[in-house]
C-alpha cells in the first residue's frame, strides 16, 4: 500500500517513463562516471595533455595534478602520499600486491593465505604462484561469508609470506573483520593485503585503523573512470615492481601516468566519501523497502551474506529459481542485475562464492545480485519487486 501521495506520484511518473528507462541495479559491477570526476578530468583530456615525466612547462600542470591526486587519495584513506601507487585497475593492484610480495621473498617464505571467496584477480594470482612452487591456503568461510580469525591463526606458519583477504565481497556484500585478521597476521610477522575494490567509497576505509600493509582499489566502482586504480603500500613494505620500464610511481610501476583518469579517480573518491553518510541512509532505506515489498510477494526466497554488508547490496536466492533466466527476463524489462550462476546447455555452474557459503541446493541456482546506487529510487525498488514477482509467478 503506497501511503504517501508524493510517492504515488513518483511511481506513476516512473512507470510512464519506463519504456526508455533503464534501472541500473548492478553498481558492484561498475558505476557511471560522476559529473564531478568528468569535470576534473576534462582539462587533462584536452589542453593539458603533457607527459608528466617531461621537463617543459606543458608538463607542469599534469605533473602537479598527479601530485595533488596522490595527496587527496592518501588523505582520504589515512595514508601518506608516498604510499599511494597508481595502477590500471583493481586487478592490477591485486596482482602486484600478491605476486610482488611473493617474488620479493622468493626462496625465503612460500606460504600464501587467502580466502575461498576472493575475487579471481586474487585467486588466479595465487594459482599462478602455486605453479611456481608456492603453497596456497584458501581459508573457508561461514554461511555469511565471514573468515574466522581462528582458522587464520591455525593456517599461519613461519613459512607464511602474505595473507590476502578481501574487505568486502563482490557477490554477497559481506564485510570481513579485517582489523582482527590483520592483527593476527602481524602477530606472526606476516604481511597483510586487502582487496578493497568493493568497499572503498562505500564504507569508511582507513588503512591505519584496518592495520593493513597493502590495499587495492579501483576507480570505476565509486564513480571514477574505468582503467585506473591504486595500490596502497605501507612505507617500509617491500614488494617487487610489477611493471618494468621508466621511473614513474617512485620506480615501482613503470608506464606514463593516466593523468586524466588519476585526477578523475581522486575527485570521485573525495565526492563519494563526502556523500557517504547521506548515500548510506538512502541505500539502507531502499534495501528496507525492497525487503518489505518482498515480504508481501509470497515468493520463497532467502538472503545471502552478513548483516554487516556494503550499503545497497542484496544477494537473494529464489527457491527452484533460475538466476540466469531472471537476469535476462529482468533485462527485457529494463532492469540490470547480476547473477551468481552461469549455465550452459548441460549444467548450471554456481559461483565459487555461493559454493563457499554452502547455500542450500534448492535456492542456489536462483540467485541474483542487486546492488543499488545513489541514483536509484523507491520507484525503482517497486518496479524491481513487481517484475520479480510477475516473472516468478508466471
Amino acid at each position, binding site marked *: 500500500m503506497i501511503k504517501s501521495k508524493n510517492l504515488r506520484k513518483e511511481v506513476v511518473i516512473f512507470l510512464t517513463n519506463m519504456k526508455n528507462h533503464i534501472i541500473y541495479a548492478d553498481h558492484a559491477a561498475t558505476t557511471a562516471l560522476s559529473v564531478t570526476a568528468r569535470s576534473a578530468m576534462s582539462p587533462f583530456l584536452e589542453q593539458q595533455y603533457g607527459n608528466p615525466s617531461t621537463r617543459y612547462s606543458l608538463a607542469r600542470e599534469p605533473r602537479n595534478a598527479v601530485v595533488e591526486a596522490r595527496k587527496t587519495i592518501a588523505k582520504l584513506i589515512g595514508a601518506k602520499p608516498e604510499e599511494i601507487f597508481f595502477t590500471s585497475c583493481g586487478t592490477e593492484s591485486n596482482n602486484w600486491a600478491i605476486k610482488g610480495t611473493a617474488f620479493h621473498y622468493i626462496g625465503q617464505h612460500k606460504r600464501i593465505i587467502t580466502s575461498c571467496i576472493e575475487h579471481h584477480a586474487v585467486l588466479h594470482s595465487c594459482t599462478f604462484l602455486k605453479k611456481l612452487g608456492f603453497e596456497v591456503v584458501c581459508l573457508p568461510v561461514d554461511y555469511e561469508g565471514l573468515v574466522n580469525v581462528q582458522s587464520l591463526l591455525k593456517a599461519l606458519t613461519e613459512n607464511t609470506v602474505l595473507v590476502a583477504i578481501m574487505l568486502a565481497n563482490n557477490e554477497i556484500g559481506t564485510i570481513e573483520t579485517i582489523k582482527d585478521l590483520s592483527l593476527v597476521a602481524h602477530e606472526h610477522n606476516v604481511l597483510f593485503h586487502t582487496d578493497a575494490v568493493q568497499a572503498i567509497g562505500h564504507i569508511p576505509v582507513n588503512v591505519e585503523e584496518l592495520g593493513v600493509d597493502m590495499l587495492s582499489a579501483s576507480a570505476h566502482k565509486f564513480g571514477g573512470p574505468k582503467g585506473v586504480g591504486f595500490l596502497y603500500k605501507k612505507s617500509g613494505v617491500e614488494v617487487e615492481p610489477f611493471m618494468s620500464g621508466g621511473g614513474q610511481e617512485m620506480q615501482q610501476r613503470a608506464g606514463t601516468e593516466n593523468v586524466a583518469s588519476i585526477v578523475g579517480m581522486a575527485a570521485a573518491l573525495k565526492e563519494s566519501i563526502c556523500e557517504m553518510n547521506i548515500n548510506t541512509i538512502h541505500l539502507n532505506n531502499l534495501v528496507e523497502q525492497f525487503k518489505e515489498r518482498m515480504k508481501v510477494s509470497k515468493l520463497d526466497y532467502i538472503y545471502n551474506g552478513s548483516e554487516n554488508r556494503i550499503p545497497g547490496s542484496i544477494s537473494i536466492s529464489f527457491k527452484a529459481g*533460475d538466476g540466469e*533466466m531472471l537476469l*535476462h527476463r529482468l533485462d527485457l524489462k529494463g532492469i540490470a542485475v547480476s547473477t551468481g550462476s552461469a549455465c550452459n*546447455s548441460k549444467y548450471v555452474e554456481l559461483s565459487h562464492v555461493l559454493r563457499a557459503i554452502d547455500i542450500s541446493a534448492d535456492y542456489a541456482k536462483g540467485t541474483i545480485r542487486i546492488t543499488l546506487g545513489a541514483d536509484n529510487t523507491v520507484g525503482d525498488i517497486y518496479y524491481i519487486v513487481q517484475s520479480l514477482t510477475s516473472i516468478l509467478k508466471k
Partner: protein
Amino acid sequence: MKKDCCIACGKSDLSKNEIGINKKLIGDEVKIFYCLNCLAEYLGVSTEDIYDKIEEFKERGCNLFD
C-alpha cells in the same frame, strides 16, 4: 501437441534457436515452447528484443543456439 510446435499458435518445426530461447527465458526445464512471435507476446516484449537476446547468447558461445 508435438514438442516442437508452438503452444500458442501451433507453428510446427520450431528451430533450435526458438527452443533455445524458450529454455533461456522461461527456464531450462521447460517442456512446452513458443515460437518467437508468441514468446515475445507472452513476455510482453518485441520480437526484435527476442532476436537481440538470441544474438547475445550466440555471441557468448551458448550451444543451445545455431
